[in-house]
């Protein structure tokens, strides 16, 4: 019977190999961050030495704090703007400039970061803006709000619109119907959007390099300049901490989307 054996051995093997390929490098990195030896490739027993080193590295800590602040602020603004954009695109029917609007929102998703970074920098220079926290925050908001818009829009698209129409037939005005019916339903997607924006901002090297000023390096910028000089065990520890932070974020986001899928169709991941 063909129907029973849908999952062939080839399918299982390719899945297993694919997942191993995706996870093994990260796993190795995490394990080696606990390595006591200074030589990154020689195992010298378990140790927290490199974490200690990181917490005593003032410049790294400052960069991490800068990245964290940028990620929280830009993710928050991006979530607000991205959600508004998603509502306009999926509920606004036709409006003037709609094509340009959706074009501007979808293009940054694939636009090479060197272009986005360079163009924003030239804008900031022309405006004579002091480069630092705010310029990076604005740059990250511009990039990540597009991701938020796509996540929220796909959730809005899968919602049953008769719910908000029913609310309006029962006397709600549109704003009230949105706030009391639509918003609670898309809330999980909004949370997931915030998380995605947060991690994207935390990761970004290229756009931040262009838009930041002297003395306000983000964590990826510092990591990058260290990595260029070669592998250092301390970097393994920092990367592990970032992975741990992101893992917490993912757990929260997946709980949120589980909530979302139990209320209807599951939200698209991207």
């Amino acid at each position, binding site marked *: 019977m063909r129907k029973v054996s849908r999952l062939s051995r080839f399918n299982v093997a390719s899945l297993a190999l694919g997942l191993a390929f995706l996870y093994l490098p990260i796993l190795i990195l995490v394990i080696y961050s606990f390595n006591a030896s200074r030589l990154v490739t020689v195992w010298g027993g378990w140790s927290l030495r490199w974490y200690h080193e990181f917490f005593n590295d003032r410049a790294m800590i400052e960069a991490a704090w800068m990245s964290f602040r940028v990620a929280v602020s830009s993710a928050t603004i991006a979530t607000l703007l991205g959600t508004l954009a998603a509502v306009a695109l999926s509920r606004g029917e036709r409006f003037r400039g709609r094509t340009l609007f959706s074009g501007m929102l979808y293009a940054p998703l*694939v636009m090479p*970061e*060197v272009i986005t970074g360079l163009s924003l920098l030239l804008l900031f220079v022309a405006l004579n803006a002091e480069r630092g926290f705010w310029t990076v925050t604005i740059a990250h908001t511009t990039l990540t709000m597009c991701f938020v818009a796509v996540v929220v829009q796909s959730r809005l698209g899968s919602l049953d619109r008769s719910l908000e129409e029913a609310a309006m037939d029962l006397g709600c005005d*549109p704003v009230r119907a949105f706030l009391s019916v639509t918003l609670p339903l898309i809330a999980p997607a909004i949370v997931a959007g915030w998380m995605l924006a947060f991690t994207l901002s935390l*990761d970004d090297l290229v756009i931040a390099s*262009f838009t930041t000023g002297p003395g306000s390096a983000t964590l990826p910028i510092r990591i990058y300049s260290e990595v260029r000089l070669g592998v250092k065990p301390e970097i393994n520890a920092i990367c592990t901490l970032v992975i741990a932070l992101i893992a917490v974020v*993912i757990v929260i986001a997946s709980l949120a989307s589980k909530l979302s899928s139990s209320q209807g169709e599951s939200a698209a991941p991207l």
Partner: protein
Amino acid sequence: MSSRRIFARPARFAAIAPYVWMALFFLVPFAFVLKISLSQTAIAQPPYEPVFDLTAGWDALRAAFAALSIDNFKLLVSDDIYVFAYVRSLTVALTATALLLLIGYPIAYGMARLPKSWQAVAMVLVIVPFWTSFLIRIYAWINILQHDGLLNQILLALHLVGQPVVWLSTDSAMYIGIVYSYLPFMILPLYATLAKMEPALEEAAGDLGAPPWQVFWLVTFPLSLPGVGAGVLLCFIPIVGEFVIPDLLAGSNSLMIGQTLWLEFFTNKDWPVASAAAIVLLLVLLVPLLLYERLQKRQLEQGR
């Protein structure tokens, strides 16, 4: 008036804030890139001639226009370094995208064949690395690929090689890095179309006597083409402009365009040439970008 149309009116107003934001921080900056790409390099801070001074009146404005030159673009076309960089970027992106498709397709196919409850788990497992930092994932590979790294240790222990292989600063390392980083972008759209496919179609083809490879080529693959298109564009476009991966993993003797742009900007401080390089890169990517936008729009706005 239907409640749907009443709802649409305030929804349109929601566009105002993000519209203004994107116009200001995404669209307007391109005007500056274009302007500076047409201006002369100057040893100054910032290192290019000043932008139009609108208060100076018409004559000054006309003079500013007259000063615009396409020298930077001529330089890009005539200097082998840039021409090679564009050619190399496109070659690398094409090769890497083909590799991604070859590797990603079986994985996506395997996912789509899993029992429904497992599919969700597999999808999360594929998405998670996408959330982990790009830079960290590349760094993880530097750990593995370095001279006395894990890969060489394993190869030596298995007596597959006599002495350590040089992996870092080679194209193979770069391709490993690119495939590793972009794999989720290829798998997810492929999986999305494959999972929606009616399994009865494949079964029917099989029942009518088609061998498995024919079922795949005549039924499965053609039906998955929308996913293939999305995955290919989602990978190809950013890879052409990729900077971090070639910079950290490939050798420095042949650069991709993202790297030359970075060098012109940060090392040579030649902002006009960097801007011109960005404009040309944008033009090279215009067609795939427009295709991608149409696909994205169709997926998000109609296909339900």
